[in-house]
């Protein structure tokens, strides 16, 4: 007696795997979209390494009245 190649069990497992894959893909897309939204709404972003940052240069700071 040959082993059945396609059993309802395989269909169920395949459905589960496809469903989980779609959920994970949707989650990745959502986190990516959220990152873009947060970054684009976060104002100016400056690099920290090997870059001149005017904000950290005392010479560029505007003196405040005391």
């Amino acid at each position, binding site marked *: 007696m040959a082993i059945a190649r396609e*059993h309802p069990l395989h269909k169920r497992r395949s459905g*589960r795997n496809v*469903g989980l894959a779609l959920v994970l893909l949707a989650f990745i897309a959502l986190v990516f979209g959220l990152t873009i*939204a947060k970054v684009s709404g976060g104002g100016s972003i400056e690099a920290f390494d090997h870059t001149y940052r005017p904000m950290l240069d005392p010479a560029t700071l505007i003196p405040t009245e005391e």
Partner: protein
Amino acid sequence: MTDIRADFTQTGPADAEFGDYVALLKPRVMTLVVFTALSGLLVAPGGIHPIEALAAIIFIALGGGASGALNMWWDADIDAVMKRTAKRPIPSGKVTEGEALAIGVTLSAISVIMLWLATNALAAALLAFTIFFYVVIYSMWLKRATPQNIVIGGAAGAFPPMIGWAAVTGSVSVEACLMFLLVFMWTPPHFWALALFMKSDYHEAKVPMLTVTHGRRATRTHILVYTIALLPVALATGLTSIGGPVYLAAALWFSLGFLHGAWAIWKRDEVQAEADSYATEKRVFRFSLSYLFVLFGALIAEAALRNLPAYAEFVAQFNLMEML
């Protein structure tokens, strides 16, 4: 060879389809959660990035689904007894209790953390409290202990519009509290109408529903009293910054309709109800569902209309909060 074949054909209790895991999250309840949370989010003052709004709704829904899975894990014994719930994934043997617990806990953590990252700490804290309230206060404690289970447990279902509001504003205001109260006061008459025509189920599961502990006459009176108490809450919401003529008209019309239904339930006795297979109770139960959707839909309509300057100016006259 026969043994090998047997290994392929035997399916264990945990061999569920993807849809069984979705059913674990109570998608029908999730519809209400999504709609009320979306309403809270859309009517809140200020703006939110559309992606953040989408993420907020998804994670609020996920939190609601997670608490549904934890509820099914805890209530598996009584779900198996009740006809209405016997086909749920755990009592039907498709999903194990351990799986439901693992899914519930994991999704709870993911939803709260992600809502925090997507919006703010207050919205996430409210979602965490909602899950705790539904699972621990309602499912584990009140449901089997008191006939007022629906009244206090209903608070869990009332939080989503407040979470939606908090996701945008980062705070909780009178408007958010009134939206909470609207769902809170709506829940008891809605579920007691269901309990009236699902009598045998709760009775056999030994869940102390009001129908079982205080009788059906008392339940009919409770439905009427809570529906009367719902009316001022529904109207007061219309006098705040999120209300207006469209909402007030819808709230008044549908609240009177709900009252009319509750009155019809109160007037009937068991002989009349059984004679027409609880037709009035079923009609009021269906009406109560549309009641909530119409009222929150009207709030969304108000938010959309307020973009028209002439309408916004007109509506400001009705704002009780500003008048005070």
